[in-house]
């Protein structure tokens, strides 16, 4: 038994099965990310005045990542075109680029996550707030037992609101030094992880889900890249279709980033 139209287009619908399947899947993905972006809008509109962060993310790194993905979209297209003209060597080169670009993207993303996870906000006993990146914790540092000290590279502010808009002239002018704080002076210490506030929550969730999509796409493309040779020899047309379908998914994942970048980094 064989399923018809796995490779050839059905004459009256003009499409082969897998391509229709991936478009349907992408429609559902649009609704998934649509739901998440709607959540973003509702949460941002409902945020307390002055408490939505600005400039918390590194625009340079974000831009580099955007360019990486844009470039990978081009190499994906070229890889498919190479299959279309039956040039397997070129396909190998282009999709090797795609995989490297994707891995670089994930590397930069991990660095950004790490940067947020070692960034601490400390509520001090005197009502002020220390904010900065962790330099070191003393060996006996224990918040519960109130022993030891912690050293941050950052600054101390009077009000949390001053930490919200890092693009403001005041924030730009702030001087960052190494500050050492005793555990006895700490009321609450929290890094910029997902639970820090609504912005970091949605930042980690949205970019995390997107990164999972990138990872999934990379695994699939790598599979075709590394183990596709056998099918290329027996059924190059089917293989080309597979590259087209995985490419459609890849373009969609790129497109999601094109929305994520301005929404999270630039506004």
């Amino acid at each position, binding site marked *: *038994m*064989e*399923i*018809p*139209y796995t490779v*050839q287009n*059905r*004459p*009256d*619908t003009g*499409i082969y*099965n*897998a391509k*229709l*399947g991936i478009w*349907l*899947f992408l*429609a*559902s*993905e649009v*609704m*998934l*990310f*649509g*739901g*998440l972006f*709607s*959540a973003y809008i*509702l*949460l941002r509109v*409902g*945020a*307390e005045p002055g*408490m939505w962060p600005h400039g918390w993310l590194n625009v340079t790194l974000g831009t580099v990542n955007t360019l990486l993905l844009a470039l990978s979209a081009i190499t994906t297209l070229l890889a498919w075109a190479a299959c279309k003209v039956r040039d397997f060597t070129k396909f190998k080169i282009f999709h090797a680029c795609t995989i490297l670009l994707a891995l670089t993207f994930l590397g930069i993303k991990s660095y950004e996550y790490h940067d947020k996870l070692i960034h601490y906000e400390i509520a001090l006993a005197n009502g002020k707030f220390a904010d900065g990146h962790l330099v070191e914790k003393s060996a006996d540092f224990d918040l519960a037992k109130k022993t030891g000290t912690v050293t941050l590279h950052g600054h101390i502010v009077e009000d949390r609101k001053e930490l919200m808009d890092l693009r403001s002239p005041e924030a730009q002018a702030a001087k960052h030094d190494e500050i050492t704080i005793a555990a006895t002076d700490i009321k609450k210490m929290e890094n910029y*992880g*997902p*639970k*820090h*506030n*609504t912005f970091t*929550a*949605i930042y*980690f*969730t949205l970019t995390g*889900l997107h990164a999972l999509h990138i990872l999934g796409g990379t695994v699939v493309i790598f599979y075709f890249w590394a183990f596709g040779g056998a099918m290329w020899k027996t059924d190059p047309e089917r293989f080309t279709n597979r590259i087209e379908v995985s490419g459609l998914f890849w373009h969609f994942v790129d497109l999601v980033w094109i929305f994520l970048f301005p929404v999270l980094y630039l506004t």
Partner: protein
Amino acid sequence: MQATVQQFPPFREGAAHPAHDDHGHHEHHEPNFWQKYIFSTDHKVIGIQYGFMSLCFMLFGFFLMMLMRWQIAHPGVPVPVLGPLLGKICGPMAAGGAISPDLYNSFGAMHGTIMVFLGVVPLAFAAFGNYVVPLMIGAPDMTFPRINMASFHAFFLGGVVMLVSFFIPGGAAQAGWTSYSPLASTIPTNGQAFWLVGMVLLITSSLLGAVNFIATIIQLRAPGMTWMRMPFFVWAQFVTAFILLLAFPPLEAAGVLQLMDNVAHTSFFLPTGLAVGGQLADRSGGGSPLLWQHLFWFLGHPEVYVLILPAMGIVAEVIANNTRKPLWGYKSLVYSALFVGFLSFIVWAHHMYLTGMGQKIATFFQTTTMIISVPSVIILTCMFLSLWGGSIRINTPMLFALGFLPMFGIGGLTGLPLGLAAADLYLHDTYYVIAHFHYVVAPGTIFALFAGVYFWFPKITGRKMNEFWGRVHFWCSFVFMNLVFMPMFAQGIKGMLRRMSDGAVNYSAARVPNAIDTLPGSVMELNTWILWAAIALGVAQIPFIINLFWSISHGEKVENDNPWDATTLDWQTPTPPPHGNFAHEPIVLRGPYEYSAPGHATDFTPQDEAEGPSAPRTPTAHH
């Protein structure tokens, strides 16, 4: 449409024995048990897998309901028979065999979840859809057989996760099947996290299924099977698949966010200043509880049509077959189903009139809600009118289909007051709502599903289910179903609150003599009646269960492949259909309901019968 299409699969000649049929994939290899029943890619086996699992889940959900009904009728009294077992499984939550309020809450949440996501949807959409749709459109299988298998496995895993959550410390989810935040993030049990992971698996399963169904219906229709020659059942599944495809992902998004709330302690749905147990919660706040409700009901309402459309499809097939005449208004049915599917995406907030989201929004959703009742009424009217002037054959499937019509009618009409904000404010938290949606789903959808089981059983097994016990099953179910749900309308109108573990006994005159706003004793007494009706309803299912299994090997054998004299392609296959389905390439020449065509020798003309009385006709030729 061309009469022939290239690349149609090579069909094996002659009827095949199902037990020996897998030659296409495993030349001269007898598939072992695992290949045949667990890792099968055959749409029919997957359909049966889904059917069996979902029937088991429905029975389990029914038992949860019986325990809850006992608790409502006899608050705090140890459960008879099952009490000791319950105490062992649920520990302190069922001390002495009595159901604690926490356990009641978790039963309530899981009854809803299991019935909707593990019972009715998998049976109506996945089981019947998988088995019947490829047969009806003349396809050899689904477009993506392996994805189909993955869909079932994800479903199975989701079910396992849901069931496992009963046994963890703290027990299963307790925040209702709607899992409203902040409640869902503050109850001290990991059951909610299990629920969310289970839901993500179930959503994945339905996504894979939906993609497969749509692609199959678009790509694998047999030559000549044009859109308007598709049986209404296929249309209903097509619309359902689109609803699942597009409505479920926002719930998946919401599920991911709530999982973050529960596991990573974010505050997507937790407002600023949230206090738990009198203490300010250690949360950043700034979230929106209303956001969860919007995302949930964006799925939740279309889900109602996921529950009802396949049922309508089954009823349409059974009615057309047993009235021996074409469905009345086939095109109206199709366009109504499409319109319902579209409109179901913009009615969700009628579940939220009580949330204070604002009068303007309420007015908008009230309007769309009234509009969506129009196509539903058209569908039901078409089915009623189809009976007009038919020489109706009464058999078990037809009885269930006929039972569906008034029962769904009651369910639908009692929904109208709930669609209007002013009436809903009073009724929303009462038993009226429980009665309303159970009339839609229980005597409505589930009756249609029973009709489907009795109707397609001969195609699946080659034997009919016992007619006498089928009728016993129908009449007992019909009577007791109404005895269970009808009193709830009265209770609700009198103001009995739902979700109360003690049957709202604390509002009754018995506890607080002479208090204002108490419920009369007669309303409370109904709880005992409902309990006994529910037990009787459970007993009424025993003939069905025995009949189902007994008939597989002992039922009356069918004389031919088309025992009901049906026209659609699913009956023009060998019995049971082999791997690849058709013994010959089906070429469709006419519409789906060519019954009693003038001049034809028999009172039915199969869609692919070559020697028709005349040239191919359109399905509306009779209207």
